[in-house]
């Protein structure tokens, strides 16, 4: 923690990578990156590179896991061994098991699970390169992949984090800001229904700071939501325009 004295925000109010406090990292979303999956998406958010794949709905194996009144959603979040500075063991860590659960639970409210009882949908999230805020980027990508698989949904789920860097609240923390900063608040959100599906906090914030952080994260979510929709639409509009 020798870096503790290092300033994360300069005199002009810009961050290490030159962003303003309320600015997102550059985001690129690509739909249908994998042809073998029923639905897929690839997201780049700053230095994060994440692939999400969706398979199903299909019959549940082993059979005793099936539910008679609704669909089962399964999720695996995994970081590639080369996704971080020092090689990560490919075996699922405690953190990955937890994130898998967190991602699954933030997507569940958006899906009409009751439509297809006795079936399962598998979501695979593979982090190729990590730079802070991977859970949020994973949720954003997984939701697009679900829509691409044609699974009926109430709304797209979009996620974004805000946190406390030095003494101020900032949007979309990257790895160094997350590690040296004071707190991190990831939020997942369904914009059309105005419903939050995930809210976590790591660190210490006052009530006022927490509220500011949530509001800032929601602002970020709304911006990313437009990019999600744009990405889904371009996949089909491109074909349409090429024809005309």
């Amino acid at each position, binding site marked *: 923690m020798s870096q503790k004295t290092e300033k994360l925000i300069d005199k002009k109010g810009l961050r290490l990578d030159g962003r303003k406090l309320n600015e997102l990292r550059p985001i690129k979303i690509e739909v249908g990156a994998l042809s073998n999956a029923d639905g897929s998406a690839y997201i780049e958010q700053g230095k994060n590179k994440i692939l999400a794949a969706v398979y199903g709905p299909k019959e549940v194996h082993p059979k005793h896991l099936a539910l008679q009144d609704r669909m089962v959603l399964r999720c695996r979040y995994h970081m590639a061994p080369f996704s971080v500075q020092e090689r990560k063991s490919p075996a699922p860590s405690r953190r990955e098991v937890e994130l898998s659960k967190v991602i699954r639970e933030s997507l569940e409210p958006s899906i009409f699970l009751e439509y297809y009882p006795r079936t399962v949908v598998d979501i695979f999230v593979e982090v190729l390169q990590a730079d802070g805020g991977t859970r949020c980027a994973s949720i954003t990508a997984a939701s697009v992949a679900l829509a691409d698989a044609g699974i009926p*949904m109430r709304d797209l789920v979009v996620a974004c984090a805000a946190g406390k860097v030095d003494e101020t609240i900032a949007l979309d923390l990257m790895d160094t800001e997350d590690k040296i900063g004071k707190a991190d608040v990831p939020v997942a959100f369904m914009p*059309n229904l105005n419903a939050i599906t995930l809210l976590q906090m790591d660190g210490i914030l006052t009530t006022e700071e927490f509220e500011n952080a949530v509001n800032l994260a929601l602002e970020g979510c709304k911006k990313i939501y437009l990019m999600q929709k744009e990405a889904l639409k371009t996949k*089909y509009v491109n074909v349409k325009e090429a024809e005309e």
Partner: protein
Amino acid sequence: MPTFFERRQLVTPGDLIAEGEYIAGENAYDEDNKIYASRIGLIEYEDKKVNVVALRAFYIPKVGDKVIGTVVEVGFNGWTVNINAPYQAMLRASNVLSRPFKPQQDDLSQVLDVGDLVVAKIVAYDRAHDPQLTVGEPELGKITRGQIARITPTKIPRVIGRKGSMISTIQQETGCHIILGLNGVVLITGKNLEDEHLAMMAIRKIDEESHTSGLTDRVTQMLKEEKTKREEIKK
């Protein structure tokens, strides 16, 4: 009671389509008198009903649907058939054999074996039970020849066309007989391989360009061009 999208506009899940006295149709849902889309698709209005014609979807069985499936397992008194849906379908032996089924004598794998393709109709299906098939009607039964094409199930209506215009055009132009499985599997049988390939090309084109307009004309044109091209090569 406004609507927020025009006919044939593209929507994504969660888009607010209409408000007030509208009814949620296919791939749409209603919450607090507001209609939202639940899939990626194109908007269609039908009086007060709002439909989303899905661009991405999977097949869900419906009683009365004609489907084409693959036998995946031979059981004691019937077959398990993969019909390209989240649920596996059952075909009973007593339904296939035209005489009473005797488990001691009849070897079911002689009738239908793993990997065989069947045209069948769904006779029973609900939330609690897997679909049941029948082959006891004309045109149904084991497939012995032809070509199989797999397309997105939601695009089958597009292959049929308005009042069957598209499918009859393809059949006329290629001289092939085409059976459409509503689960997205298409069987093409023609006099020779070349005709079948031609029909296959047309169906692939529809699958790729289903969301564009004036498709029937373009398919007809493509078929004619292909035919003249092939005749020239023969000369």
